[in-house]
């Protein structure tokens, strides 16, 4: 699914941690977050290429979500600077970061349960006049804008195959539908940079495939995507670039093919492998072995 242009933009880039990109949208320097004595994140330098899909991977506890929280203003860094499209963002509160065009989703999906799906969507639009206290009383002031917002919301619901549940409460949706809703809702603000925290977690394989397709389409429309993911098949299928974190630091960057053979990455994963999911090929192999063993046992049981 990787487009020719994006692949070639990053083609000549060195595969070393913190390497400069041809056209970075996000540039971060010395981003540090300490919890007591533990340094959860210490990223010396990171650039995220505009218009590309970058995967952020690493073992559990590597600091991926913490890094997300820091650059989106949901957590306060102990130090460091970062900028989006040249505008410094350190110290900016979360809602302003979102208005600047960097919108995130959450690992544990945050559907607004007791609101209708369509209202979840309409909430995502920024700059609504009717969100100010006094104009709120006077519907004629914001009716036209609200109609436009609703039309955009309906178009996105259609695209994400959620039109059927438009008037349901978001709390009635399945886990996978909630993931889709959260992604669609984030797009309502017309972001330039989308940060997805495990967009495929807990989603059935068919729907995961759909989400992969959506992410690819967004990139093709010019959106920049950074996503955290554990499933290496997904990472391989859509990411243009892979960034690996371990123990709070960047340990590798590069294309998927070189990342999987990178000794530092293998070390990091093996060193902290307990409890992390195996990749799918390995899972299949283990399953096949188990099945074979069961069949053999059954054949023996049925014998004379």
């Amino acid at each position, binding site marked *: 699914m990787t487009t020719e242009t994006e692949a070639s933009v990053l083609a000549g880039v060195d595969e070393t941690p913190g390497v400069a990109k041809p056209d970075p949208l996000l540039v971060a320097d010395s981003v540090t977050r300490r919890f007591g004595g533990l340094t959860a994140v210490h990223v010396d330098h990171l650039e995220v290429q505009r218009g590309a899909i970058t995967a952020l991977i690493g073992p559990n506890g590597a600091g991926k979500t913490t890094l997300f929280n820091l650059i989106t203003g949901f957590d306060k860094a102990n130090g460091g600077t970062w900028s989006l499209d040249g505008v410094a963002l350190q110290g900016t509160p979360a809602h302003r970061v979102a208005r600047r065009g960097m*919108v995130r989703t959450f690992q544990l999906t*945050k559907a607004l349960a007791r609101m209708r799906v369509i209202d979840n969507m309409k909430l995502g639009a920024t700059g609504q006049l009717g969100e*100010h206290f006094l104009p709120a009383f006077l519907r004629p002031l914001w009716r036209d804008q609200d109609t436009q917002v609703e039309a955009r919301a309906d178009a996105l619901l259609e695209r994400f195959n959620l039109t059927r549940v438009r008037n349901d409460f978001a709390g009635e949706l399945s886990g996978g539908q909630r993931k889709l809703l959260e992604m669609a809702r984030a797009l309502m603000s017309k972001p330039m940079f989308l940060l997805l925290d495990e967009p495929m977690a807990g989603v059935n394989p068919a729907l995961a495939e759909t989400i992969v397709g959506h992410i690819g389409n967004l990139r093709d429309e010019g959106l920049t995507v950074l996503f955290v993911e554990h499933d290496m098949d997904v990472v391989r299928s859509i990411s243009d670039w892979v960034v690996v974190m371990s123990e709070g630091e960047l340990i590798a960057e590069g294309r998927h093919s070189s990342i999987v053979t990178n000794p530092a990455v293998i070390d990091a994963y093996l060193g902290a492998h307990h409890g992390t999911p195996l990749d799918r090929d390995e899972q299949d192999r283990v399953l096949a072995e188990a099945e074979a063993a069961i069949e053999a046992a059954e054949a023996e049981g049925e014998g004379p």
Partner: protein
Amino acid sequence: MDWIDIINTTLRTAVGTTAIVYALAAIGLNVHFGYTGLLNFGQVGFMGVGAYAVAISVTELNLSLWVGLLVAVGASVALALLLGVPTLRLRADYLAIVTIAAGEIFRTLIQNPEWRDTTGGANGISQFSDSFYDVNPIPVGSYGFGPWHYSARGLWALTVGWGLVVVLALAVWLLMRSPWGRVLKSVREDEDAARSLGKNAYGFKIQSLVVGGVIGATAGMFQAVEKSSVTPGNYKPETTFFIYAGLILGGVARTWGPVIGSMLLVGLLEFMDGVLRGAIAEGIIPDGLMDTTQVGQVRFVLVGIGLALLVVFRPQGLFGDRREIALETR
């Protein structure tokens, strides 16, 4: 037992001034708790500040009653900011603690004997709302039908009171169907989600606290002006919980829930009062079990049991949507 009398009294109470006061306070609390998810356990503090601001403005500052009402609105905005600015950035429980404490601090302060010249101490202040009854356009006489009969004065107070209830309930309805109300509900559901979509959750919570607080203060202002007196005893913490009871009985986050709920609660308390007194008088409840001095407390116990059953069997209240309550909010 005189059932006709009990029912008539109940019907009168359900549309009386106490019902108005509870309804107004509950409309404000509905903005906080129902729509924004703010745990305000000190709505009575807003009522008290509204009431005393009017009384003190007129009796001590020699302002006209109408200016006094504006002062009261200003005072309730100030209280909302005082309570909200430091706490609303923190977890939800902090507002709960601070509001319940603020209500009690307020009551303790106005009872302070040192300030008796200004606040009237434990006796409170009276005789400050002549201007309200002076503008009564209803000619002297007796009005009403069925169980409802009022003097011109009483009818004037009820008209203004229910007018306020309708206007404020409709104002809240207008707000909640707007994009502004949509943001409040999103803050109730998940503050971080709201922030991730560019909404200043803190700013909206402050606005909500101010709006609901001013409506709560209106309840206090109405109560003070209608009786032309304020006493600290009116502002005990349990009042907040009666307001919550009315709100939950009617249905949270519903336009008319707080209004109907308050009328029912007040009517129900009066009804239990009449029934218990009647039963004691006729010996249905033996003297050894309880006497008329205990009726006031026992009716609360009975209504409390009723509310507990309501929460079990109809958690959404009378106007709520069961489906909505059953949702998993994570």
